């Protein structure tokens, strides 16, 4: 029976706590009697028979007819699927997308459907490479569809292949992939690694254009999404739900398939398995492996370390497969996500600490540049709450990460200019949005790289910054421990060499003897703050 997540009150017997630190780790002693650590739950039991569960979901969908009844000869079928940003880290083969898509295609083949397209729903993310597509959908599917041009990446900047479907009552324009919009049936295959994923957001964002996405990927929306992991209190989701209604009213029929995975991020094999263990349960073998891993990593170059970590494939177990109409499916999926991730926490804290790992949604097979460090900490980890933020208003956020001044020139070209030009001017999200966004979003060179190379859209670094705007507004100070000082200062944060130094610096903002909460993530944990 897996143990649920819990809150540990730190006392003198508590051993140092493991903090992720990019492609490395730190062991940090937290002050006794005023610190607490939020531990994630152990991996929930995985489904015994995933194939059977997929069949059950497709044959008994929620509020829709069974999939075989929706498939007819001569119809236009489009299967969209989540891109390389999910799950994190990538899962061991076979990827759950492959298993679901193969099951859908088996039924389509039985029904005699010839016109089938598969689209990686990547919105404004970079295009997936052949290897990445093969990993996601499997070789069998790739070889059957890619050579005919029927398996491809969504292009949010292709005017010929986008369909304008109308506006919401709030004036939000809805424009999505033309093929998806004109299909008789759109099957969307999700991996819902966190509660933010899925629902109407899959189609309304994943298959949308910049023209549509800008209506919810902006400072106002993000500042009013409290948090965007809690759909019912997220302006981001409200906007997507409104767009979902426009899509449905335009006659787009979506058969939603959502899947959830458990917290088995690091598996049973040492040395990675130690990262999922509670420190006081480390055996002698765990400790030897950890010391070996630490010492080994110290002696390796940054690119080698990155290569090793990026090669890790997580042995996630699939915990649910649900199919049918978007809203009932998503409500069920949310429950599965919360079962794995939610931990009840009593009250807020003065200082929130977090160890940032080597990966975030936008640096799979890439470099975690300083903007992504900000986005992972202030965007994702800060928002891992329901109710109230873990840290009080005016509190301090302390993150550990090396924050190197490094960028992937192919994946993140506009990030480089954003960092050099925009952040050198201002770090205020609203000012950035008003002064700079349009210029980057409509830059022809960035557009060209997004469409033909493997670059994130020109506007993407702005969205990363907006992603953290709620945290920026809420926090009194942000400190990065162990980061490149120049890069940290460019982000507008403070740099500290040690965690104790960071605590000293934080006391200037929150007063003496502050309370401290450490969010021990990954594996994923979400705080239900009372």
């Amino acid at each position, binding site marked *: 029976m897996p143990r649920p997540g819990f809150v*540990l*009150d*730190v*006392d003198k*017997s*508590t*051993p*140092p706590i493991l903090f992720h630190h990019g492609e490395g780790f730190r*062991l940090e002693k937290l002050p006794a009697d005023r610190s607490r650590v939020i531990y994630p739950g152990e991996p929930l039991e995985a489904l015994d028979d995933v194939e059977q569960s997929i069949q059950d979901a497709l044959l008994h969908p929620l509020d829709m007819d069974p999939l075989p009844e929706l498939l007819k000869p001569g119809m236009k079928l489009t299967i969209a699927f989540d891109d390389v940003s999910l799950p994190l880290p990538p899962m061991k083969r076979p990827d759950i997308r492959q298993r679901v898509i193969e099951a859908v295609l088996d039924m389509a083949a039985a029904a005699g459907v010839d016109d089938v397209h598969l689209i990686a729903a990547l919105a404004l993310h970079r295009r997936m490479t052949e290897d990445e597509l093969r990993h996601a959908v499997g070789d069998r599917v790739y070889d059957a569809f890619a050579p005919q041009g029927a398996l491809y990446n969504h292009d949010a900047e292709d005017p010929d292949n986008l369909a304008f479907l109308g506006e919401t009552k709030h004036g939000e324009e809805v424009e999505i992939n033309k093929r998806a919009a004109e299909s008789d049936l759109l099957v969307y295959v999700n991996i819902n690694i966190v509660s933010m994923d899925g629902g109407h957001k899959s189609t309304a964002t994943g298959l949308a254009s910049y023209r549509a996405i800008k209506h919810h990927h902006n400072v106002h929306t993000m500042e009013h999404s409290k948090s965007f992991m809690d759909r019912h209190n997220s302006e981001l989701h409200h906007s997507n739900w409104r767009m979902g209604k426009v899509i449905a009213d335009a006659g787009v029929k979506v058969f939603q398939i959502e899947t959830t995975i458990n917290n088995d991020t690091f598996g049973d094999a040492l040395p990675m398995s130690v990262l999922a263990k*509670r*420190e*006081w*349960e*480390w055996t*002698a073998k765990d*400790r030897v492996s*950890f*010391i070996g891993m630490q010492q080994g990593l110290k002696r390796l170059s940054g690119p080698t370390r990155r290569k090793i970590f990026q090669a890790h494939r997580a042995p996630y177990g699939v915990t649910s497969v649900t199919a049918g109409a978007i809203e009932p499916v998503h409500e069920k999926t949310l429950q599965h996500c919360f079962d794995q991730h939610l931990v009840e926490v009593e009250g807020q804290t003065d200082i929130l600490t977090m160890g940032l790992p080597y990966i975030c949604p936008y640096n799979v097979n890439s470099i975690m540049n300083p903007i992504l460090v900000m986005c992972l900490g202030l965007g994702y980890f800060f928002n891992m709450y329901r109710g109230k933020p873990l840290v009080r208003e005016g509190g301090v956020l302390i993150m550990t990460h090396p924050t190197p001044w490094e960028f992937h020139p192919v994946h993140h070209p506009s990030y480089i200019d954003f960092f050099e030009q925009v952040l050198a001017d201002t770090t205020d999200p609203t000012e950035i949005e008003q002064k700079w966004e349009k210029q980057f979003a409509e830059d022809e060179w960035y557009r060209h790289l997004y469409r033909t190379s493997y670059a994130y859209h020109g506007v993407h670094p702005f969205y990363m910054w907006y992603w953290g705007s709620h945290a920026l507004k809420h926090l009194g100070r942000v400190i990065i421990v162990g980061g490149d000082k120049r890069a940290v200062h460019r982000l507008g944060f403070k740099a500290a060499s040690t965690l104790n130094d960071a605590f000293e610096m934080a006391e200037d903002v929150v007063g003496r003897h502050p309370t401290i909460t450490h969010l021990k993530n990954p594996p994923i944990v979400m705080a239900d703050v009372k």
Partner: protein
Amino acid sequence: MVDKKGLEKLASSVQKARAKVPPVRALVAQTSFPYRAPTTPLTVEPKPEEPTLLGHYDSDWARKLPARYARFFLTEGMVRPIIAGLAQPERKGLDRLADLDGPVIFAANHHSHIDAGLLITSLPEPYRHQVFAAAAADYFFDTRVKATASALVLNAIPIERTKVGRRSAEQAAGLIDDGWSMIIFPEGGRSPDGWGQPFRGGAAYLAIKCGVPVVPIHLAGTGRILPKGKNRPKPQRTVVTFGTPIRANEGERSQGFSDRIEAAVAALADEATTDWYSARRRAASGETPTLAGPESGAWRRTWALTANRKKPRTTTKRWPDL
């Protein structure tokens, strides 16, 4: 000739070097987690330790290549000479195994700790180095040292004697399916008085489950080398008799098959103490003596046991010791 000044210089530099090295105690005191074992926070209920001994012992490592090489050298370089010295085995009936192909279950009677070693060294190739032993979890796997030694030397897996262990049965069946043969003593333990004990159904169950034949084997004489309750072995001659492999009949239940295995071992015991033809005739007329011996008082059972010995004791001591 050594210069006095040079010696002084050397001594002083040694002293300086020693002063730079902190004492071991100070080094130990300075170490912290993860170099030291962690302490458990006061508010946390320590996780119950997962059992790793008895029936939970994981012996998979013993079937990896390094352990297999080590076992090969142990079997041939240590166990075989010891068995040759202590048991001087005579091996009969090996020709009955000539047509065997694939994994089998070797089921033998059990008198002594030496039985497993004797049996393994008596097996023909390819079985000798492709076999695992089902060993009592409560005896062979109760300490880490015994468990490691049993797994390494005998390629043993733990079998629960006191309860039906699904885990043990599944592990054994998995190994048989993977091509390993099994040695099992269906009596479940060593004989307390030299006579046999009723066979339990494990060997028959696994043979039916995996669809493999059972080779009945009778071991004679090992009870006199190292009987239950003794620690010091006494060399004796032994006889290992291999029987004809038997398979479960269509729809046969494990208890019925187990009875047939027991009867086959009893017939081999009869063959070892008399001759093959006489034993066959008694088997045909249902008069084979049981392994369990007569139902009578302890002294009469011992009396009957010694009467069954085919050969006189070979290590009679002369008295007085001249």
